[in-house]
């Protein structure tokens, strides 16, 4: 069962972070934090970018664990598939949450 968890963990964490950041975005747009701009960037944008960076770091950490001798799977099928799905999690996070950097947050 541990091998199955290793295979599933990165994409599942992507799904969780993707849903959480979408929910965060909905919450921010609903609460309308106003025009506070600490570094010339709106507070809502900073919050979303911070969440994006955190999600990427978590995925990178998971990938490192999957490559480590201690937590990674034994050589063979489970090791290669879990590492592939680890890359899927990281690339999916970068690709699907990239809009936090590039698109207006609450515009219609």
């Amino acid at each position, binding site marked *: 069962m541990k091998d199955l968890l290793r295979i599933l963990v990165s994409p599942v964490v992507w799904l969780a972070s993707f849903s959480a950041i979408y929910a965060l975005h909905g919450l921010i747009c*609903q609460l309308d934090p106003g025009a506070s701009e600490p570094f010339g960037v709106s507070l809502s944008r900073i919050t979303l970018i911070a969440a994006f960076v955190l999600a990427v770091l978590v995925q990178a950490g998971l990938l490192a664990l999957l490559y480590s001798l201690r937590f990674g799977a034994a050589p063979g099928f489970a090791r290669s598939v879990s590492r*592939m799905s680890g890359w899927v999690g990281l690339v999916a996070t970068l690709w699907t949450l990239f809009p936090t950097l590039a*698109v207006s947050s609450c515009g219609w």
Partner: protein
Amino acid sequence: MNALARHRRLTAIWSSEPGWKGWLSTVNHSDVGRMFIVTASFHFLVGGILAMLIRAQLATPNSAFAGPEIYSQLFTMHGTIMMFLFAIPMIEGLAIYLLPKMLGTRDLAYPRLTAYGYWCYFFGGAMLLISLVFGIAPDGGWFMYPPLTGRIHSPGINTDFWLIGITFVEISAICAAVEFTVSILKYRAPGMTLGKMPVFAWYMLVVSLMILTGFPPLILGSILLELERAFALPFFQVELGGDSLLWQHLFWLFGHPEVYIIFLPAAGMVSTILPVMASTTLLGYRWVVAAAVALAILSFGLWVHHMFTTGIPHMGLAFFSAASTLVAVPTAVQVFAWIGTMWKGTPQLRLPMLHILGFFITFVIGGLTGVMVAVVPFDWQVHDTAFVTAHLHYVLFGGFVFPVLAGIYYWLPLVTGNRRFFRLGKVAFALIFAGFHVTFLAMHWVGLMGQRRRISTYAPEDGWTAINLISSVGGFVLAFGLAVVLIEVVLSFVVRHRAPRNPWGSGMLEWAIPRPSAAYNFASLPRVNSRDPLWDDQNLPVRIARGEGYLGDPASGRRETLMIDSATAEPEQLVIYPANTRLPIVLAAVTGLFFLSLLLKIYLITPLAIAGVVALGWRWVWRLGSKQDLGDQPIGHGVAVPTIAEVSRPPGWWGSVFLLVANATLFGSLLFGYAFLWTIAPGWPPPAFIAPSLPTMLAAAVGAALAVAGVAIAVRTNRNGGTPVSGLLAAVAGALGLVAVFAMMLWSAPPAAGHAYNATVMVLGSYGLVHAALASLMLIFLLARHRAGYMSQRRRGELAIVKVWTMYLAGVTGLVVPAVYLPGLVT
């Protein structure tokens, strides 16, 4: 014992009752799989006739063939039948029939559950078909958007048939998903590690996990909408704090993964059949497995792309547009693996291969139009047009029906024992392929010209007449092709033309057994050393028949198979199955009575039906187990393993864990709905929050702690040879305390029809109450089992199962109580 004597002995043990009674009491996976396939095919026929009626209506402008009311029923039932009564059950049927044979075992994990799932599907499907016959079928479109389907705009019983009937049918899918997950992880042939599993089993494992997490949001949505319609609980009524967009979120949280739930098993068939047709192995097995896993999980992040026109902010649109384009990558990995497999091997253009090529062309076109509608500005243009309908059909017909047809022709000799005789298949393929593309290419075109989907007619000056006529002609050609397939399949059963044992030269285990397959599948369970055991050992079928594998001695007269360790694939437990019984059909009928009482609003019957389900459920479980310790049982090759009653993690434990995954998803969806209404719906906060009650909260904490601690103590004392009664009594007290807590919560809640908040509190409290009552019942059951002598230091499995459910109850309590009381406490 020689092979023939072994065959006769095993057949006597495993066979269903002779005659028609056998269909009612069989729990054998081959029987139930065939019943699923036949019933799903019947529904496909009905759905196909409805499609013909739709095309007849649209063939000419200003058509008076069907009025708008009937036309709405036609397209709603066409979509509903094809999605819920054909596609998913057909997958279930094929997998129920094939998986044990591919995995090298004798049956699925829970044979009675397989039969119960079938009968729920049968009765639920019958409910929907009856509504069609009486002209009161659902008419709100297959995704049933409120407010159209609310009781103001749809006051009749039509929508209720959909909400209640589909929920009933979904029980079948959840049963099958639990069954497949446990079977694939724990019921494989010894030696078959995860990396040696047939690729189809990998696809089905992924799909089963998707069903467990994809279907609960729809079940929840259906419950909430039915509660609104029947009892005026305003979850989707804006003026009372509800929001119709909540339905769209819940529906598409299910609806988008559903497309992949349908596609992935079909892709599994392609990955299985294609290498055999090319006389080689699948190129990039590991890449294909990783792609299937990636596709499955990515598909859960796409649901909002069905809602691009509902007024979502730019960033939200961009998230889901990006995710929608990303799924093309794992899909392409599979397509390139299939192309590479053909390149590597020597493909032969036999009939299954023709359908696979049809799949390639059609599905790739459907995938490309999918990327087009993932682009937001394009989606805005074509949303709700015939273009989207055409795209959907390219994906589902191309991605499902062509592979299923390939699978039918491929595995038909295994089912019938005969080879095809009349050779109608190529004609059928030509008609289907040409008919399909004429129909749906035309539909893309007319959609781009502006034809809305679901319109019952159009005017000649719209300029769509010729295209619609061409599309309708194509539809009828397609229907002729499918009729020819049906004729050929029936003829294959009737005309005896004996097929060889392994007609395609496959290396997989399903071809190592007699054909048509025997009720017991394998006379002895083989040890597997690769993904193609038949290629390793041409003599394997003979050695299996001679009883040279595990469990080759049927002297015990029991239905037996093995559970393995999921990682090492070494034998771990001896499974003793229950025999034929009518309990599944009776339980499904009583479950149906429950749903019928809700549909017809005869609420006096509802508690009787619930009591019936509880009584039958009690009887269901009571029949399992043993009153004496059996000790480790010899299984052959000098190995002895304990029976499933004498281990800490029996099949029931595994099934409970995966059932609770589905249950937790439903609960999570409810919490999501609560949060969604709170943040998005107008009319929040509500006029008043429920008054916080510190004594109730304290009682909840004590009850949950007592229930969990009591079961833990019972498990520990039993393990040490003591009596678990005192621990169980404490746990019962805790669970009954929680029943009282949730009853108090409901009693003190404001009127549920007043506001969506009140309604949500009612549902949250009811969810907690049901689980507290269920845990109490389970704990009382354990006390009765202990008293009757079914438990001992060795026979401890039942305690482990109830422990899982009690811990889940504690978790639910820990979330429901704060969710209900904290808002009032904070404000």
